[in-house]
């Protein structure tokens, strides 16, 4: 008890002073190392670190649970993104998890409307002559794409669940 009483007041300020504020606030593991260096009498620090780890585990578990719930409820992997290229050049990468409407301008000045909703990307409007992109089904699986040939716009799903087919014939 005596030892602990002596060690404790010396230990606490030492840890607070020696640990640089930067890493301490941004990286719990870095602050952990700093504390270990500053306090060789590491029994108390070790106990606290375990607490840290428990918290991290709890929060990590919580985060995983959230992701799982999202995947189940929304029916798609949160990693799914769509890459949009115009004339072969990547102009935007957006998540399939956030509903939004995107206006695109193609090569030659034509316009397309891409709607991202419920984890799917769908070309809903275009002033192209053939309307093939508008007739195309909504895409959501990795590797699937919608192409507006006249405007040279390609929308491709990356990440997430793999598509069941490698190519389509129509």
């Amino acid at each position, binding site marked *: 008890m005596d030892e602990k009483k002596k060690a404790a007041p010396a230990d606490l300020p030492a840890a607070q002073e020696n640990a640089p504020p930067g890493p301490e606030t941004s990286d719990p593991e870095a602050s952990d190392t700093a504390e270990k260096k500053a306090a060789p009498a590491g029994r108390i620090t070790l106990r606290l670190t375990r607490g840290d780890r428990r918290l991290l585990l709890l929060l990590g578990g919580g985060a995983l649970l959230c992701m799982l719930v999202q995947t189940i409820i929304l029916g798609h992997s949160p990693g799914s993104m769509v*890459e949009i290229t115009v004339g072969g050049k990547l102009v935007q990468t957006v998540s399939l998890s956030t509903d939004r409407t*995107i*206006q695109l301008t193609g090569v030659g000045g034509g316009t397309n409307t891409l709607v991202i909703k419920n984890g799917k990307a769908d070309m809903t409007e275009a002033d192209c002559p053939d309307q093939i992109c508008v007739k195309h089904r*909504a895409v959501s699986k990795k590797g699937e794409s919608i192409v507006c*040939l006249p405007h040279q716009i390609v929308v491709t799903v990356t990440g997430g669940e793999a598509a069941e087919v*490698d190519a*389509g014939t129509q």
Partner: protein
Amino acid sequence: MDMRTQKLGHMLHKTFTELLALLLTAVVAIGTTGCTGTAGSSPVSTGAAANTETAANMGNTGSTGSTGNTEVAPEITDSGETSEGLNKYTITYLDVFDTVTTLTGWTKDEAAFAAEAGEIHDELLNYHKLYDIYNVYDGMVNLKQVNDAAGGTPVAVGSEIMDLLAWGQQVYTLTGGAVNIAMGAVLTIWHEYREAGIADPSRAELPPMDELKEASAHTDITKMQLDTRAGTVTLTDAQMKLDVGALAKGYATEKVCEAARARGWTHLLVNVGGNVEAVGDKPGGIPWAVGVQNPDNVDDYLKVVNDTDLSVVTSGNYQRYYEVNGVRYHHIIDPKTLMPSEYWDSVTIICADSSLADALSTALFLMDQESGQKLLDSAGKAAEAMWIKDGTITYSSGFAAYLKDT
């Protein structure tokens, strides 16, 4: 104990604060990333030169038009999937045969895939230019020049054109004239009316039948004379026109896949606008999965075909069409009626040879099932068909063996 409790409380509080700060940072970071779409949702323009040619030529049967683009090379997508030490890559090209071309390959690394894709693309682009009937290109004689010389002047052409036109003669004979590359005069009229009807739907019209009939007098394939020894082609009817749209994609796909096999490539899938051919299979002996689109356009593929070293080609009425008074008129024209064929919504062919698969899909689209089956039986190579009409699917006897269980 008081001291310990106090200190523990203090440390816990500190840890909580830190973690809260971390979480907030993470949330803000995710929010920022997630919002790039909103931030970037203002119109994006590449500043590339307008390419009206491609737009103007869309809607044709597939072999026409030029791109002449100076766009940057498209990017390779790394799927992140690996198997047996190979990685899956894809690339999409928009500058061949007025359609979307997607190459998918399993290779050791991206450089290996880039080399394969680059070669295939160069070859396809060359065929595209040679078989173009709307534009001419520096340093080559193409089908537009052959058409322009109609009226008796022999035109010296390379083997790629000579071989395709000879194939066109064979297909004409095989299909009893259902597929005729000398139909250009009729197809051009449909093309013009379709383009005009799509551009201004309120004034969409059907081509007058007398105009079509007049043009059909200039579709005699025997007036296309091939002199293989001299390497020349002569169109003896001044008003005739070649249109290889029904054959060119399949023919070119077959040629590039044959070349790929000869180079020893083993895991490549070539999809030229729905004209699909596999070079080998996927790693581990797994066949490629090729989806056949539902003509009724719902959100899924109707059937999935297992594909190892096979070609799968579909002719359908639902992609290129225009509407006149609420009625759809698609792009596959029956030489007998000079009107869009009404037998089927789509016909899909499985055959090792993509040039034959392409020819058969068009031919079978233009005839009843019995005639189609006879044609399959006389094609000289194993070929299977799937016919779809109003949601009803009919198969030739061997087709079902290729269907993937779904």
